[in-house]
């Protein structure tokens, strides 16, 4: 997809993307953020993009996550939590993000331990899904379980990690 192709998709779906940004918490800034979204999306479009509209949504979503994160950081509450100077953008998607997240070693160690305590199937399902990018279908096949069972494992792992994050935030 060329930049002009991407731009055409962007222009055709401006309203939907703006609605998404607003629903995601952009409020009155949605219009301005649309501009920022385009800058990011076009700058990050280095390779072929299979689904340009999904890519634009993902970029918009990352934009909101990054804004939230820098908001937290400027509140100084997030200082220890993340470090904007290094590390990879966690690989949740191919959409560009200006923020880089690097979690403190101890936080990771705690998360590793908490995950391990959930049982090996939950741990396996989560790591395959989140770290290696496997699909739920793949994981279901690998473990010989149903898709809904995979969902339950992922739910359990995510809940644990959200709780853990709250604890770290509270400290």
């Amino acid at each position, binding site marked *: 997809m060329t930049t002009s192709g991407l731009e055409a998709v962007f222009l055709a779906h401006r309203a*939907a993307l703006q*609605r*998404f940004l607003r*629903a*995601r*918490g952009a409020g009155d800034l949605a219009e301005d953020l649309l501009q920022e979204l385009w800058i990011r999306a076009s*700058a*990050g479009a*280095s*390779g*072929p993009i299979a*689904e340009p*509209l*999904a890519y634009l*949504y993902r970029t918009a*979503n990352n934009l909101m*996550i990054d804004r*939230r994160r820098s908001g937290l950081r400027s509140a100084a509450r997030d200082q220890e*939590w*993340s470090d904007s100077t*290094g*590390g*990879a*953008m*966690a*690989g*949740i*998607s*191919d959409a*560009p*993000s200006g923020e880089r*997240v690097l*979690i403190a*070693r101890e*936080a*990771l160690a705690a*998360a*590793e331990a908490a*995950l391990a305590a959930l049982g*090996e199937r939950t*741990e396996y399902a989560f*790591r395959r899904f*989140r*770290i*290696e*990018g496997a*699909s739920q279908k793949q994981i279901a096949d*690998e*473990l*010989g379980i149903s898709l809904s069972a995979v*969902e339950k494992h*992922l*739910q359990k792992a*995510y*809940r644990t*990690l*959200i709780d*853990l*994050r*709250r604890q770290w935030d509270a400290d």
Partner: protein
Amino acid sequence: MPVRHDQIYDEAIDWVVRLRDAGPDGWEAFTAWLEADPAHAAAYEEAALADQDWGELAPPPRRIAPDHVSPVPPFFGAPAPAPSRHGLTRRRWLGGAIAASLIGLVGYGTLAPDRSVYAVETGAGERRSVALADGSRIDLNGSTRLRLDRDAPRFARLEQGEALFTVVHDDRRPFEVEVAGTRLRDMGTVFNVVSDRGSLEVGVAEGAVLYDPDGEAVNLTRGMTLRRDSGGRAQLSNREPEAVAGWRDGRLVYASATVGQVAADLSRNLGVTVATTPVVERQPFTGVIILDPQPQSTIDRAAGLLGVEADRSDEGWILKSGAGETR
């Protein structure tokens, strides 16, 4: 703070999971869900931040996989990388125990999540420039095939052809290129890599590159070129640093090259086949060839400089000895 096992949180987690591979419909449904209740956005945000934060956790240890799990197939049919490659592509914080468990992962290539892997290719005579998110840039010459991974943004695999890497250096996360079974690690760099049927040539225009960091660990500095034939013998030579990236500006600059190398470069740059006879293939050449959009005129001019004759054939051109005439 909301109740922990709140319905909303379950839904928010579901969205984090589903949106990873969602198409436009999924995102529209997600928008509707967010709009349905103001509490939804906050719950999703928390789940999304957690999801992003924990992206650096270790991959699963293979050994706990259940009985009937078949081994993970190697990617791209490539030979299994040495286990140590894993240690480098994974985050540094990996403890010894986790690193040890990775040894079971031989064959599971550095480009693990295949979903995020994509190829950038150029046809014969075509050029393309790829800008990476970190500000690095890769210029692809013609007939080149490169693999990139959105989840491993500091890694590229050159499968065939020629690429010029202009890398934004980061000591903590060096950029690595896998090519012809070897790895190259940037040390603050502009470098050019050519790979053709197993052969390899690395030239450094700026900074330095570490060739085969886990093996021979040859440090290539500005102006140095390493050439390795498909037999595995490596040779170092010096070149004008400006010559390394010359092709991008339409100049091919040579010092003590051979006519065979020039012919290969002409083929790639012009998008035509330029072969040589065995007699002229090893003939030395020092000089500059200016690329012209017209293959015929470039080859005519090059043939004059090389002291060879260029014959047009169905296949393209063949460079041969000029009937005893040398310039």
